[in-house]
């Protein structure tokens, strides 16, 4: 089957179970807050807390000559945290929800997708909470919110693609998730989250360029921190990365999904 058909098939599948996907995501989010101390406050308190810590650390302890360094960092860290935690949870998702697989006949991709979706929600809440700060920094930020939304969607698709792959891999190689935590840690350092790309020596810059997350973080930065529209190139890069990852994920999934149930 051609790539095109495959993609369409999966998209159709996801679309036809969208109600279920919604239900699963909502319930996941609800469950998260149900058990917590502050309830929905978690989505607010957590990012705020994180912001304060970063501000504190990067204002008083680590000094780097960039204006509003803390906010610089925040604009990178929030997307990064969405990416890493969503991927992490997505990787584990099949194992955690194996009883759903055994009991219900649902499209299996819904599981990692709903996980990513839930994390996306947390990410958005965090952004919303931080928005006032960015607004203070740069009033024009609000004009680019639609663009931000588009980037978020593309980022979401990107993470979904990766998530579908990793979740599958983890079923067959149960230790993958521990590798993943190390990989993500390394990955963090080859992404310009704590420092701008300019700081990186030329020779190593190519690694950063090849890193998909660099493109995403760049876009986020430009919109949120700088209050500008990212360049066409940057956007194309982001779109391409999303597409590639998604399609890879789809192909991968299609090939191996039938074997999941027997392995869990």
């Amino acid at each position, binding site marked *: 089957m051609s790539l095109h058909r495959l993609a369409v098939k999966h998209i159709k599948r996801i679309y036809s179970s969208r*109600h*279920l996907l919604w*239900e*699963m995501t909502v*319930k*996941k989010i*609800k*469950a*998260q807050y*149900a*058990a917590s101390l502050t309830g929905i406050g978690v989505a607010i308190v957590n990012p705020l807390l994180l912001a304060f810590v970063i501000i504190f650390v990067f204002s008083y302890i680590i000094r780097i000559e960039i204006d509003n360094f803390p906010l610089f960092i925040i604009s990178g860290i929030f997307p990064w945290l969405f990416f890493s935690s969503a991927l992490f949870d997505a990787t584990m998702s099949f194992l955690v929800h194996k*009883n*759903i*697989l*055994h*009991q*219900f*006949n*649902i499209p299996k991709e819904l599981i990692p997708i709903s996980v990513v979706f839930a994390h996306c929600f947390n990410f958005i809440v965090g952004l919303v909470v931080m928005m006032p700060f960015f607004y203070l920094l740069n009033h024009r930020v609000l004009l680019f919110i639609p663009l931000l939304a588009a980037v978020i969607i593309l980022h979401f698709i990107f993470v979904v693609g990766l998530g579908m792959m990793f979740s599958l891999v983890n079923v067959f190689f149960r230790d993958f998730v521990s590798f993943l935590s190390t990989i993500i840690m390394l990955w963090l350092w080859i992404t310009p989250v704590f420092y701008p790309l300019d700081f990186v020596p030329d020779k190593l810059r190519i690694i950063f360029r090849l890193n998909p997350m660099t493109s995403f973080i760049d876009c986020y930065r430009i919109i949120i921190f700088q209050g500008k529209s990212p360049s066409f190139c940057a956007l194309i890069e982001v779109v391409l990365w999303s597409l590639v990852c998604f399609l890879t994920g789809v192909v991968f999934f299609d090939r191996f999904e*039938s074997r999941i*149930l*027997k392995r869990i």
Partner: protein
Amino acid sequence: MESIRLDNVWEIYRVKFIIDGKTKWDNIWALKDISFSVARGEAVGIIGPNGAGKSTLLKLIAGMLAPDRGEITVEGRVSGLLELGAGFEPELTGHDNIYLCGSLFGLSKAEIEKKYDSIVKFASLGKFIYAPVKCYSQGMFVRLAFSIAVHIEPDIFLIDDTLAVGDENFQRKCFKKVFEIREKGVTFVFVTHDIGMLRKLCSRVIFLKDGRIIKDSNIDTVVPLYSQFSGNRNEIASFKKGDLHIVFNAGRLFLNWKDRLITPHYGGYVSIEVERNWYNSFQAQWEVTKSEEDNIEVIGNFYPLLITQVWRLSLNGGSLKWIVENRVKEGTSIQQVCFNLMLDKGYISWKSYTARGEFPSIPEDMRNWYPVASGGLLGKFVGVEAHETDKQKLPSVVFGYDEDSYFSQTNILNSDYLTNCRILQYIMKCGETSPSVGGFFLTPSVTIKFNVPDAASYIEKISTEYTLLSKRMKLLFQQGKLLLLYNNRFITQFPHAFTAIHINDRWYYSTMASWHVDKIEDNYLYVMLKWVGVSFTQHWHIRVIEDDSFVWEVEEEGSHTSAVIERRIEFLFCKEYLRYFCEYETGDFPSIFTEYPQDMLQCCIRRGEFGLRGELKSIPVVSFKVIGDNRSFGKIFNSDIFQRGRSVVIYNVSPEEKENVNGRLTYFKIKVSLKDAYNIENVPSVITNKRVKFVFDKGRGRIFWDDREITKHLSFYTSMRAGGRWYDSFSSASWRDTYNKNSNMEVNGEWDYIPLGQKWSIEVLPGAVLFKIILIVQKDIEVERLQTNVMLSEKYKKWHSFSQKGIFPEFRPDIDSDWEIIVSDNDYKGKCVAVDEVKEGFPEVNFYVDKAFSAGRLNIVNSDLYHRARLLQWVDDRQERIKVGEYLYCEGKIIFNGDNIK
């Protein structure tokens, strides 16, 4: 219309094996070539051992797995309970989870909303519907899950053994709902291990094992198969011949006839009692060492006992031979080995060689097994049969043990109410012999024959090895005892006839020995007996020489014979024997049994015939005679309250001086004869004429005047003396009433062991009794004395004869065999002797003899202090030899003169 269809479905799993650190991937086929289809609205149960592939099958039907080979077609929406609490988000409430689960099942929010109330109502969780699901009990989980699953309105409903978690109330609700939805045409597939639940919900069952369908049929066919075949492969072996299919499974034997299991529950198994504890074969560890077309060998180990059992099962003809070899570790002793065969309750009647009966129905409160027939009665073989209508399904079964040894016994039992079946048992007791030498092999075995057309005659045929037959008599040797039957009715009762030896302060009974029986000829049975602990052998020679009588000779040989103090042959006869007799005495057995046996004769009978008789026509007269000069003598006892019978014991008591014994010596030689009893009239015959009444009662005639008895004790009787012994009409003859009308009667009497008979004709007139006695001689005999006597009350004080008269003196204190003859008239004809007493309503009695056998005398006799009576007598004491024929014995009259009585 099919709602589920599987065609040649194969499902494979790849499993990683790690052995010694090396990883190996192997393909495991979870389902192999599965094909079946389920119609719409059908309910199917799936049973099988763990790992059979049941859950995989359900997942295939649910659509979560795709078949690796073959095709599966499923029509309609599928829902069910495959995992407990699947899809529930623990932190969320039941309410939220209903929506979540509903969507997971594929319902839209609106649909869930519509059904929400009904789901909540069915789950009946009360306020807990709003509590987080993490705090639910398992029962609540399953209620909610089931409720949601059922309200989905599926076309196919699957359950993977999760209903077991719910309580009875819930299960009832579930069943009700299942029946409801089945009405609507919902197909139902149900995996469980609970047979009871299966019975309630479905009628079709598929038995899955190792990925294959073993049987797909109705519940009554599949369930017995399941219990037979579930287990480890190396513990199961089976073989088949014709309609019989035998399955061994981990210490249990299952027998199938025409694909129907006839041995329910534990089937056939063996229990052993070791060191006073019982161990069952189904608790041991088994391994099949040989499995061929017509025989199987299996080895079982009883832990922690270290006893090994080897079973060898083989089919020969229509018989299954079941040999159980017990190998014991040194020092362990086996007390008993018990073979049990549990049979379908459809068997309703049982037969053994000596008895038969029906199985009673088991009462509801019966908790234990109870015997239907006592082991002592049964013998080696027992057969059971089903009702006529069931004979096709349940063949007749004949079960018997092969070798006689110590205390072998078969039993027939009914089980308790819940198990509801019949049990045949063979128990072999090992007594006190505990082997201290290791490696002791005890090998009892049992033969089971099936579908015997006539179980009773088959048993009879195989039991007649040890039977001697005569005209009406049957003699059986069984387990060290002899059983006597007459007209197929037992006249001996347990423990029948056996020998006993007293030596070394112990009694050794023939029932305790090990024996070897040989039927040398049709009428000659030879038995050789040996006891453990005694080094001599007893030999029995039993020969039937005439109709209905046998000679039993007992010999002994061996080095210990001289140490024997006493020997016996004991017979126990049934209590229908009411009278005993010997040459000089006869009497009745008392009707009450006491704690100890009562010696009836209080003397040792060494000569002549002695024996027992009863009153019923079916009880023959049994008479014993000791043959040969070997110190034996007999005694007759009324046995004690435990045995409740009549015993005849022949003794041989050794003198204190030990004799030197070499070779074989005969210690007993007795002849036992059975004869039809003369029908003895219980009811005395009465004839009356005005004031005179004559009552004939067992050989004596009692005379009444005005209803007052004037005779006493022996009354009117005859006595004969032959061969030095007395034979009286009242004691040693049996009488038959041949004629009784108005004032005439005729009776016939026969003496048992002298060839004489008498016929009495009595006529009663208003003032007299006429008598005529005829003597019937059957064989030439020498008689010494013939008498006719009238014994009268002592109230008669005066007497007179033809020539004299007088008064009776006081009775003499010393009791003599001959009483005091007062007067004796040599000439009898025309004369009489008489007693006078008109006072007190006693008439004068005149005794005349008109004709007699030969000349004789008329005597008036005063009896002894015991009888206290007056005797008028005719005596002929000429010794002569009488030839065969009929002779007039005595003819005369007794005339009463009671004119002066008021």
